[in-house]
């Protein structure tokens, strides 16, 4: 019998720590499979940020460095500058990257650091119990926006990919999701492309992935996927924002 699908060698044996149905798990698989398939695992250093994915240093089957909240891009810079032949990626939530860590991420992008950012946007602070994130949608109720996010009081959801598309150092930038099989396949292709570009030394690559947080959204895993498909993608359209390999970019 041929094996059609099995757990990636890019993941360790450690069971994932995510809640049932949380798509952090799917995204983990895509990163792991990409690194495995590209044969990069043993020259890769991953940077685990602070958020539900803090334990990712136990899950990816490569060297991993856990780092302070929001600073993954700076940590990755420190690694990559001293290991120019290594493959360096960060795995960060929206609180981590879009809120506390936006300065480090923007400047890594602006310097064109040759690293890959896996940006998992679930519109909420998952780990700390469901507080509002800068990416939370208008009207979204969270533990710190109990009346729902209000544009006047909290501002509109921040559009990371749109902003980063204005930065010269960015070589590849796509927003994907994993709410169905097609999206998962597409997301994997994006992640693989990002790592490939890094291998080729093209500069800063980032894949934003719309992800679920069933627990803090108060939804079943299935309804959570539906919310991504129907609500989140309206605010965060899925598209390629920048691709240095495609010279047609505006």
């Amino acid at each position, binding site marked *: 019998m041929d094996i059609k699908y099995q757990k990636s060698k890019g993941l360790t044996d450690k069971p994932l*720590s995510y809640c049932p149905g949380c798509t952090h798990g799917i995204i983990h698989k895509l990163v792991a499979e990409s690194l495995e398939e590209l044969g990069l695992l043993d020259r890769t250093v991953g940077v685990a940020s602070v958020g*539900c994915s803090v334990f990712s240093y136990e899950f990816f089957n490569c060297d991993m460095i856990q780092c302070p909240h929001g600073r993954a891009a700076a940590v990755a810079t420190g690694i990559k500058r001293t290991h120019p032949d290594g493959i360096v990626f960060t795995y960060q939530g929206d609180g981590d990257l879009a809120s506390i860590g936006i300065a480090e991420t923007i400047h890594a992008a602006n310097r064109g650091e040759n690293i890959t950012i896996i940006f998992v946007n679930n519109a909420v602070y*998952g*780990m700390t119990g469901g507080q509002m994130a800068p990416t939370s949608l208008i009207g979204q109720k969270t533990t710190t926006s109990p009346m729902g996010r209000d544009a006047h009081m909290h501002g509109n959801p921040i559009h990371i990919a749109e902003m980063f598309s204005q930065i010269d150092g960015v070589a590849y930038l796509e927003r994907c999701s994993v709410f169905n099989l097609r999206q998962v396949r597409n997301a994997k292709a994006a992640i693989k492309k990002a790592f490939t570009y890094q291998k080729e030394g093209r500069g800063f690559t980032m894949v934003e992935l719309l992800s679920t947080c069933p627990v803090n959204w108060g939804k079943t895993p299935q309804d959570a996927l539906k919310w991504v498909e129907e609500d989140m993608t309206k605010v965060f359209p899925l598209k390629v924002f920048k691709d240095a390999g495609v010279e047609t970019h505006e």
Partner: protein
Amino acid sequence: MNDSVNIKVAGFGGQGVMMFGQMLAYAATEEELFALWVPSYGPETRGGTANCSVIVAKKPINSPVFQKADRLVAFNLPSLEKFRDKVEKNGIVLYNSSLIKEPGAISASTVLAVPANDVALSLGNIQVANMVMLGAFLEVTGMFLPATVEHILQKLLGERKAHLMPINLAAIAAGRDLVKNGASSHA
């Protein structure tokens, strides 16, 4: 009641362990006793087991931690395993016999097997398993007036969940009945 009672409540996340403990603390406060509720707030992520400690006392409570519990309520096997050795000899242990089929030896003066899930399911809502257990606990320990407990329940459910009041009360009653009718226990 003793001058001070140390209670440990433990189970899966989602089994209503924290609320169980808080109800005891609220009830104690309402009856003008001293109470302290301490959650073991786990990893920032979900899953795994959850537990809390409650101390109810007639005088101000000092240490918020205790070596051994006077009462242990275990909603699942991992919890029973974790705390079985941390119960006073003359303590009381209640365990959820719907999930714990083989509890093993427990050295406490009273051990009650409460089929909380089964009873809750028979009442039509698995969510009230913790109230079945609470009923049994209140009955076997003799703590708090029924009116106090009912009042607290009302407060905690609030208006939004007021419609759940009857089934919760029924669950508590069912739990009490189990004890009255001699739920399987050994001494």
